[in-house]
């Protein structure tokens, strides 16, 4: 057991180091002028998408509750934090925390009735709740109504987004790896059995829903303070956005955090790379999605989380293969 603990500590250290290196590399490239502000914007959006995907994965992938309203929680965070910084001159971090808490509370309020439903019915109900949030925002003149909320100060930087993204991943990962997280996973696996083992299934479904909603709210706050503008268009905070996030979750693998991170990055960058193809862009994007689902329905990473052991064994296998090849030629 001490062995397992040591390897865990080692893995955490390596992960932290890798996270730092990536951050350092991006900052260096930005300073040297290789990365333009456009690149940094895309990278920040990737970080925000990672937060949205990982938080939805907690609800849909780990707890097994199909949600189509995730953009609604993001919308709450985006608008509330913007309103707090614009109208009340609140510090940005305080506004972010408050918008996360608010989104989590709304998650609880929506989750309590909605999570009694299962499967398709839950999906429809969450879709409805997401749209209700959007329509409510659409009808508040103070935040711009259908024209959108303009004049939001640009408080979000790549560094801050990156840091909060790391915090999101660590918190959700640690939650999953605790007794409470296992309770959530057991609900996905077999709700009846979970209840028979003394797990209050409603409580844990709502908890997972609230945590996921909270992080989506924070992501929304980062989003609106990055673009300095947010509008109640379906593609930005409506069901189209929810479906985008869900696609990323499914593509990365349900219940796989590494996969979520990976697919969020790929699917954020892909449309940018495909810009050269102009109007064929979305066609290629859709075809890639279909091919992906045909050939790898369990997601990019499937059930495998990124781990040191997996990397080590992969490196070992490659070494072996090289060794064999050189033996053959000699």
């Amino acid at each position: 057991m001490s062995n397992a603990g040591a390897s865990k500590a080692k893995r955490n250290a390596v992960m932290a180091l890798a996270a730092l290196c990536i951050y350092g590399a991006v900052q260096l490239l930005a300073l040297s002028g290789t990365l333009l502000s456009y690149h940094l914007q895309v990278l920040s959006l990737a970080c925000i998408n990672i937060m949205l995907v990982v938080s939805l994965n907690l609800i849909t992938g780990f707890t097994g509750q199909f949600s189509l309203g995730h953009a609604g929680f993001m919308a709450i965070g985006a608008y509330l934090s913007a309103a707090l910084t614009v109208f009340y001159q609140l510090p940005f971090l305080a506004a972010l925390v408050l918008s996360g808490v608010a989104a989590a509370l709304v998650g609880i309020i929506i989750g309590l009735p909605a999570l009694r439903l299962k499967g398709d019915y839950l999906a429809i109900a969450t879709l409805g709740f997401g749209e209700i949030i959007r329509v409510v925002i659409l009808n508040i003149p103070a935040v711009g109504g259908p024209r959108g909320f303009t004049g939001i100060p640009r408080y979000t930087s790549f560094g801050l987004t990156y840091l909060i993204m790391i915090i999101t991943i660590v918190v959700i990962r640690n939650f999953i790896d605790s007794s409470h997280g296992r309770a959530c996973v057991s609900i996905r696996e077999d709700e009846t059995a979970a209840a028979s083992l003394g797990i209050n299934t409603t409580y844990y479904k709502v908890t997972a829903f609230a945590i996921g909603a909270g992080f989506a709210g924070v992501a929304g706050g980062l989003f609106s303070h990055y673009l300095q503008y947010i509008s109640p268009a379906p593609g930005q905070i409506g069901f189209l956005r929810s479906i985008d996030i869900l696609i990323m979750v499914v593509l990365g693998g349900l219940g796989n955090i590494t996969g979520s991170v990976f697919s969020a990055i790929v699917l954020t960058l892909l449309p940018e790379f495909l810009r050269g193809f102009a109007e064929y862009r979305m066609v290629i994007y859709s075809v890639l999605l279909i091919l992906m689902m045909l050939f790898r329905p369990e997601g990019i990473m499937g059930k495998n989380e990124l781990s040191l052991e997996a990397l080590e064994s992969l490196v070992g296998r490659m070494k072996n293969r090289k060794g064999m090849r050189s033996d053959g030629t000699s």
Partner: protein
Amino acid sequence: MAQASGLRVTDLSVQIGGLKAVSHVNLRLDPGELVGLIGPNGAGKTTVFNALTGFCQPTGGHIFFNDQELTHKPPHVVAKHHLARTFQNIRLFRDLTVLDNLKIAYHKNFKYCICSGIFRTPAYRRQEEMVRKVSLEILALVGLADRADDKASNLSYGEQRKLEIARALVMEPKLLLLDEPAAGMNPAETAELVELIYKIKNDFDLSVFLIEHDMHLVMNVCERLYVLDYGVLIGEGSVQDVRNNRKVIEAYLGEDGAWQS
């Protein structure tokens, strides 16, 4: 109504739609007893188990366990009173490892809050260490110690049945409800199961209430039997009593004229 410890069920009725699945059933199980519940298909045996564990709501009667009223309590509350069960159609967490299946059953004993799970406090580490130890001990007891890191769905049928029992044992039950534990097992596996039931009954100081169709197993293992037919208790008592009970014979073999001629 309930003075002694153990399970006391009085006048239990369960109505599902227009069907009286269970009507006016009285049961008692004293601590340390091994009692069987038998009856033809569709007699309402599983419904009795479901009512005891809160999976279906009784329409009448009372359930007491160790002087605590459990009538109308939801399943997760019933589980906190040290009542554990297995299911007729195995319900494992198939995509998780054998060890994680057991860890989940330990859930109600965890004391740390969500935050200490997220921040990895010493309380978290201590309790995770403990649950690992407890789980591995129980796996060793049922003979699955070497499968701890395998996915539950990769176990053989008999091993899955065992794992389900092991998972129930992690809950430190005082009463273990086994719903057809030998279903689908070959004679060798059934013999192993009988050994296991004896072992856990002695090692864990619990009472066992089991539904079973394998008469050989029932007659060998159970100290007492209840016989259910069309939701009504038609016989109870020692194995010998039940064997000679006219109503029981009729329920299983038809009215005497029908099978004697």
